C-alpha cells in the first residue's frame, strides 16, 4: 500500500522524461524503448501507443521494432526469470526435458511463459556460453549446471519455499 503511493505515477513520468531527453526523435526509438523497458521491466502496449503518438510514427512500426529484438518483451516478466539454454550442447544433453519439467512444475506451456502469480517466467535461449555445464539454466543472475529432471523439481520447490517464507 505504502509503496504504491510512493510509486504514484512515477513510471509513466519516467516515460515522459525519456521522451523529453530524446526530444521525441523517431530515430531514437530503440534507446527510448530500452529505457522504458528498464522502468517497467516490459513494454506495456499503452505505453507503446503513447510513444508512437509522441514520435509521430505509426503504432505498427513501434510494435514492429519492439517485437524484432528479443531483448524487448511485451509481457510483464515474473520475479524470477528462468532461462533454459537450448544451444547445441545443451540440446543434445536433453535440455528439452528440462523445459518440459519446468512447464509441468509451474503450470506453463508453449504459449504461457509466466505464472499467474507473476513469480516465474520461463524462457528458452540460444547458447549462453557455458557448454561445459550442459544442460545449463539460469534463474535471474544464478547459474545452475548439469541439470536433470530431479534437480529441476528440487529447484522449483526451493524457490517456492523461499518465497513462501519471505511472504
Amino acid at each position, binding site marked *: 500500500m505504502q509503496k504504491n503511493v510512493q510509486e504514484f505515477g512515477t513510471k509513466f*513520468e519516467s516515460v515522459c522524461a525519456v521522451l523529453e531527453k530524446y526530444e521525441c526523435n523517431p530515430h531514437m526509438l530503440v534507446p527510448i524503448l530500452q529505457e522504458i523497458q528498464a522502468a517497467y521491466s516490459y513494454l506495456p502496449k499503452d505505453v507503446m501507443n503513447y510513444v508512437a503518438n509522441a514520435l509521430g510514427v505509426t503504432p*505498427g512500426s513501434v510494435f514492429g521494432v519492439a517485437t*524484432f529484438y528479443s531483448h524487448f518483451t511485451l509481457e510483464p516478466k515474473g520475479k524470477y526469470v528462468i532461462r533454459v539454454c537450448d544451444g547445441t550442447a545443451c540440446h543434445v544433453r536433453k535440455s528439452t526435458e528440462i523445459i518440459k519439467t519446468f512447464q509441468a512444475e509451474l503450470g506453463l506451456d508453449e504459449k504461457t511463459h509466466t505464472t499467474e502469480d507473476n513469480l516465474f517466467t520461463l524462457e528458452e535461449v540460444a547458447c549462453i556460453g557455458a557448454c561445459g555445464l550442459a544442460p545449463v539454466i539460469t534463474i535471474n543472475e544464478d547459474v545452475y549446471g548439469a541439470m536433470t529432471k530431479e534437480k529441476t523439481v528440487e529447484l522449483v520447490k526451493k524457490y517456492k519455499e523461499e518465497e513462501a517464507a519471505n511472504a
Partner: protein
Amino acid sequence: MNTNLNSNNVTKTSNLKTITVDSIPVTLGDESNLLEVIRKAGIELPTFCYHSDLSVYGACRMCMVEIEDRHPGIFPACSTKAEPGMVIRTNTKTIRDMRKMIIELMLASSDHSCTTCPKSGACKLQDIATQLGVKDVRFKQMVAQDEKDLSSPCIARDPAKCILCGDCVRVCDEIQSVGSLDFAYRGADARVVTCGNKGIGEVECVGCGQCVKVCPVGALTIKTNLTDVWNEVHNKDKIVVATVAPAVRVAIGECFGEEAGINNIGKIVSALRIMGFDRVFDLNFAADLTTVEEGNEFIQRYTEQKNLPQFTSCCPAWVKFAEEYYPNLLNNLSTVRSPMSLFGSVCKEQLSKELGVSRDKIVIVMVGPCTAKKFEANRPEFAVDGNPDIDHVITTEELARMIKEHGIEFEKLGFSALDMPLSFATGGAIIFGSTGGVCESVLRYAAKELEPGPSREFKQFRGKSGTKIGEIEIGGNTLRLAVVSGLANARALIDRVQNGEESFDLIEVMACPGGCVNGAGQPTPQCDEDNSKRAKGLYDNDRMLPFHSSGENPVVKKLYDEDFDEHKIHELLHTKYGNRRLIKEDDFVLSTPTAETKLNLTICFGRSCFTKGAQALYGNLMKYIRDNGLEANTEFKARFCATKCGKGPVLLVNDQLIEHCTLEKAVEAIGVVLPQ
C-alpha cells in the same frame, strides 16, 4: 556461341549509353534501375517485391541477373543501378535454378492451396511457378498456423499465405501514409501484422484496398459477399436493384480480355438483367445530385467565407482518414452524401412510393471500383431504423466473377438500356470516376450558376498526377483549388494548409492514386497506361452526352421542383461525420488510488493533445498532486483521443470536461471535487 559473339560486338561498337540485355542492345534513358532497362528490352523478369511507385526493397531475389565481368556475378536487377556498357544475362542456368529454388521455398513456407484461394488465376506466385515449370517442392512444408482475419468489411487477410514481400507495408505507408501493416517479430517468426496483432478492421486501416492490389498472393484479398448477393437475387420477395458506378464500365472488359477504357455499360446492364436483378440504374444520376448539392454548398460557403477550404467527401477512405487524423477539419468536409449513399436514400424513398412497398423490401447492390465503399455502406449514418440505404457493395472484379459464375459469355452480350428516370446523367457525373472529376464537376456547376454561357471545362485538374493545384476565374472571383489522390499526398497538402503555407477554396481528395478508375476493386492493370485509358474512356463519354453540367439534368431538376423540400434535402442528401479514435484501447491507468477514490483525472494523450502540451500538463498535475499530498485519493488515467481535438489539451476531472486545459483550470476543478 553465336549470340555471345554478337553481344560482344554490340557492346564494342555501340555508343556508351547502351546496355546489352540477352544480346539485345538497349539505349539508356532515365530508367532508375537495371530492372526497368531489362523490361524496356521486352524481357519480363519475374518480381514479387518491385513496384515502380514504391521504394525499392530488394528482398524477393526473383529479379537476379548476371552481369558480365562483375564481381560477384549475379545481382538483383531492381536494386542495381544501370550503367552504360553492362552486359546482362537474365536466364542462365544458375539464375533459373535459383529462381526455381526461391519459388519452392516460398511454396514450402506458406499455405498455397490454390483451388480454394480467392486469388487463384490472378496470383503472381502461381503464374511464376507455372512459368518456371516448378513441378514439385523439395523442402518440408512449414506453414504458420495463423488464423484468417475477417474483421474488416473491405479486405480479408490470410496471413498463412503471406510471402513477406512487404509490398502492402510499403503501399500503406508510402502511398497512403496510414501504416496499418508492418513487419513484426524476427527470423522464422517474421510476420506482417497490424499493431498488437489486432484485426485489420480494428485499427487505423481506411479500407482503400491498395494493399490488396499489390499483394502478389492470396494473403490480402477483397472481402467478398457474393453469396449474400446471390441469395438476395434469388429471393422472390425482394426487389433487387443494381446501381453501377462510373469507373466500372471502363474497366470490366479487362476481366474478359478486352483493352482498358472501353465503355461497357450496355453489356453490364444485359448481364445484370440475365442474372436476375429487377432494376438497373446508373449511379451517375446520383453523382449529378451530389454535384448540385455540393456546388450549392460551395457557393454558399464561399460567399460567407465559412468552412473553407471545402473538402470533397465522396471517398469513404478519405473520410475515415480525416475522421482519424484531421478531426479539426471535419467541418470543412462537404456534408453532401457520396453518390452511393445518396442514391440509396433517394432510390429507396422513390421506389417504395412508386411500387407501394416498404423500404426493407428493396435491396440495393452498388457495383463500384472501391473496397472502402463496403465500409461506407455499413456506417450507421446511412441507415433508416437499421435498414441500410445500400445493402451490398460489390466491386468490378466481383461483378466479373458473378458473370463468370453464371456462365454468361461477356463477349457475346448485347447492349441493354438502363432503367429510367434514376439513371439520367450528365457528363458532370461520369467524370467522377477519375481524379479531378468531382472538382471539375462542381466547378462546371458553379460556373453555370454564376455566369451565363456555354458549359466550361477545367482540364487543368485532369491527368494522373497526385497533386494538382490551379487557379481559375468564375463570375469575377479567383478560386484556388487543389486535387490530390493518394492519402500521403493529401496529408502533405493538408499539413501545408494547416501550417499556413497555402490556402485553397476547394480541395478534392481521393484515396486511390488516379482516383476511382484505379480503385482496388478494379481489375489489376496490365500496364501503367491502363488507368489513363480508363480515364480517357470516361472523358470521351462526357463529350458524347447532351449535357455537361449537373445542374442541367432534367430529372434532378424535377426532383428539386416536385419532391424535395428543405427537410427532405437535409434528410436524404446530407450527413455528418464524427471524430474517430485512432487507437481503440480502453483508458490506460497511470496510477491507482489507495484511499477511497475521490478524484478521477483522465487526460487525453491523442496526437493532437500531445502536440498541444498534454505531456507538460500531466507533469505539472503530478507535481501539484504530490505537493498537496493527494496521491492516495487520485486515480489518473489516460485516453488516446477524447475526440475533442482542436480543443486540446483535454482533461476530465471526475465528470467535468475541461478544454484548452491549463494547470490553473485543472486546479480550480480539482478544488471543487476535493475542497481542502
